[in-house]
């Protein structure tokens, strides 16, 4: 096992480096200027698997610092990779600040500029006990011997930090791993994910066994399901996939004001969703920092939808300034960062009986708005999906395309939510490892529409 939080660890090195370069660049400011500084950094080992063997391994160390300068009513943001060498990075940020200054002279006034204020000081650090790099592959493949396993192990330290010229200071460092994987029997597949801060061999073996059970069910006779409307159970991961569409403008105050929100009817109280549905931002789960890029700290709990009624859209400070609204700590994109969906009452052991005859979907794939005004979404079924008859799994299905309005699926068609929930950690690795995730129950939906 290894840890990144020792005195020589990556997090400690980056923190000291960021302290020094931030202090230097803040000291370069002149009258009339305000500055917000953000750092993102990671030390990650990525190992990609195919056929339970290694396709590629990549070590990545990266530190990126951004400067957002406010000067005479103008706003300019610039960022760059840091080398890790203090002298050259301090000089690079001095040049970057000068470049911001020069550019501000050419820009029009920014009437929606958010004043820089001090939102306080916070430090959150989470140590882990990860596998040593040389132990990752043997530890993964040993339990999976005989499996056709594909996927990605990503493990290491992830960092977010923030400072500003008013004295604000935030720091978040966490040491975690994610093994996002799937196993195959020819074209039949089942999906799993093992994530945490301490690798535990028996937990990994148990996780894999659960996925093997799903794969084994696909040896039952394949079922031919025609397009149509069916009662459908979305297991927690599938329901998380569906609710992921709320990240695409649905809960954004700016999108609502700018005619781009699929939840316009909900925002304007022309309709409601199911009284079973309650969604909040819940930062107590601890997957992601509470501060945003301005250093604003969200409430630990922010209700979004309560009993089917919209309680809050996500409002960034910039949107609040433009539209005279009240900001609530949202990030600039105004998408949920720590979505938590309240559990229902349907016990896991009763799911198949409650479903009766219909479809059991473990995962969804490639979702997109098909008609934004009516909040209609299309997507595919993926991995372990089954036809269920009279409460018994009859067999796997061929992948189906579906097309359904969220006003229906989360509204009058929502029959029940399960009493058990699962955390779906963010596994995205575009540019860098993502933080965050969501917690969702499973959902039983009447008349879900399949089209192809």
């Amino acid at each position: 096992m290894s840890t990144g939080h020792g005195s020589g660890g990556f997090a400690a090195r980056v923190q000291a480096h960021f302290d020094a370069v931030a202090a230097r660049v803040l000291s370069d400011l002149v009258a009339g200027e305000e500055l917000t500084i953000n750092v993102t950094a990671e030390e990650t080992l990525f190992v990609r698997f195919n056929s339970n063997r290694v396709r590629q391994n990549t070590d990545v160390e990266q530190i990126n610092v951004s400067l957002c300068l406010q000067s005479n009513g103008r706003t300019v943001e610039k960022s760059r990779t840091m080398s890790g060498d203090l002298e050259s990075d301090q000089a690079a940020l001095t040049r970057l600040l000068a470049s911001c200054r020069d550019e501000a002279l050419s820009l029009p006034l920014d009437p929606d500029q958010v004043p820089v204020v001090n939102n306080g000081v916070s430090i959150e650090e989470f140590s882990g006990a990860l596998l040593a790099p040389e132990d990752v592959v043997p530890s993964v493949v040993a339990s999976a011997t005989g499996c056709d396993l594909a996927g990605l192990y990503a493990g290491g330290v992830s960092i977010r930090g923030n400072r500003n010229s008013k004295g604000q200071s935030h720091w978040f460092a966490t040491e975690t791993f994610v093994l996002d994987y799937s196993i195959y029997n020819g074209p039949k597949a089942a999906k799993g994910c093992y994530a945490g801060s301490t690798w535990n061999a028996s937990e990994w073996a148990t996780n894999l066994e659960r996925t093997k059970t799903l794969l084994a069910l696909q040896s039952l006779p394949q079922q031919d399901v025609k397009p149509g409307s069916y009662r459908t159970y979305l297991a927690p991961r599938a329901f998380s996939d569906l609710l992921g569409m709320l990240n695409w403008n649905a809960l954004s105050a700016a999108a609502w004001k700018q005619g781009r929100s699929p939840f316009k009817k909900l925002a304007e109280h022309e309709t409601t969703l199911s009284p079973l549905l309650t969604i909040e931002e819940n930062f107590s789960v601890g997957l992601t920092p509470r501060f945003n890029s301005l250093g604003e700290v969200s409430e630990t709990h922010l209700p979004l939808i309560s009993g089917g009624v919209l309680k809050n859209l996500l409002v960034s400070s910039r949107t609040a300034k433009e539209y005279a609204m009240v900001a609530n700590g949202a990030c600039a994109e105004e998408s949920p960062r720590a979505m938590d969906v309240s559990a229902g009452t349907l016990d896991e052991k009763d799911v198949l009986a409650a479903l009766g005859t219909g479809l059991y979907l473990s995962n969804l794939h490639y979702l997109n708005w098909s008609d934004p005004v009516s909040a209609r979404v299309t997507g595919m079924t993926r991995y372990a999906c089954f036809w269920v008859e009279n409460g018994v799994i009859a067999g796997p299905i061929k992948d189906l395309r579906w097309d359904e309005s969220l006003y229906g699926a989360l509204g009058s068609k929502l029959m029940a939510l399960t009493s058990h929930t699962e955390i779906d950690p963010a596994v995205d690795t575009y540019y860098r490892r993502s933080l965050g995730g969501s917690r969702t129950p499973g959902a039983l939906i009447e008349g879900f529409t399949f089209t192809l």
Partner: protein
Amino acid sequence: MFNNAIPHELALQHALKSALWAGLRFSSETTTQRAVRNDKPERNESSLEEGVMCEVLVDGHFGHAATADLSLAGLQRAFDRAVATTRATSGHKVHAFSATQRPPANGKYTSARQRNLDATSVAEITDCLLVASKAMNVSDKLVNRSASAMIVQTQINFFSSNGSETRQSFDLVDITLSATAAEGLESQTRSWQHTGQFGGESFDRDTFAQQGERVAQQALALLAAENCPSARMDLLLMPDQMMLQIHESIGHPLELDRILGDERNYAGWSFVKKEDFGHLKYGSALMNVSFDPTKSNEFASYDFDDGGNPATKEILIKNGVLQRGLGSLESQARSGLPGVANFRSASWNRAPIDRMGNINLEPGTSSLDELIGEVGHGVLMHTNRSWSIDDYRNKFQFGCEYAQMIENGALGQVVRNPNYRGVTVDFWGRLAGVGHTDSTFGTSYCGKGEPSQVIRVGHASPPCLFRDVEVFGGQA
């Protein structure tokens, strides 16, 4: 931009103490994003992503370590990390590679451009964006009038222990104008994009004004239009939707790493099998598709891929029959199939994988008027709005921004929320007409890989006519 002081030779010598082969890819990319919305500045940002990917071949396995520390000591540390991890994982490698997959290459590439982007001022770009935003202000119903420009300048230099030295310099522009018209609970958006390897010539005030007014007027027309009808009918796709159709239903399924199963846990597998090459009838005889990194101004034009493989135009589908896949030298070695030079990485901190590049549908013989004239009852669709396809690249559903009905060979009323769906090989079999003039589009955001990477791809296509397709509109 490129720091010639990087001690690549000494670093490679250090790596060769432990590796059979070593490569060093320096990448420096400056991305500037400017946006104006409703005549006000929305975004003025730039980023510099700069670093080196150190690559080693140890015990028949390629492994990687990325660092932004460009000193000799920093590069040596990265090579040491790459060697240690690769040695630890090579016992479980998926294939035994050799230096044959990294042929020595030498050369330089520079994007075609008329005017250097560095000579285009901040004020000039901002002015164009403001001109467009103001030109969209033709009605109070235009609630969102946005204009944005992303300017990317990239330098990629590749050195290897077997003598490669390539230096490639790219200037890229991605401009979007977007107008949203809203009334009551209804809203409609119309947009225009200009993407590719261009220089400062892209910032022409008149073009921004003309395109701004056009998309605003068309957004208003959509707001007043009826929903697209739901029925089977002929479908004429314009090049700015063909790009998506090509991308999703030809480009991705032909990637050899997908066919080999590398992507199964993320983007997905492919309905195409290794034995299909040379045999599979992918579409009608009118269908000719190429991988073309040589097309001037297209987004993914280059002379060498990130493994040093020289890039040449190759035919993927000829007269409707599948010929060749999109696979790098590594995928070619694993599959035994011919491929292309498409081993590409998104940045300094990602290892190369099989990517699409420029995938183009070759022009046919018909004018647009002739294609319209061949339709008794159908619909013409412009500009992708929604996209979704299954993980084997079979069942797709795509939506467009703007459509016009075609009746008895003539364009008719505008309809909104146009969508269509189909299954890949069946759909391409319905190809009944190909225009003689192509247009080039592209996207900066093709996502794939574990760890994930977004990369730029280009697609050139003429308008194409498909017979008897399932078309549908939005909810009433």
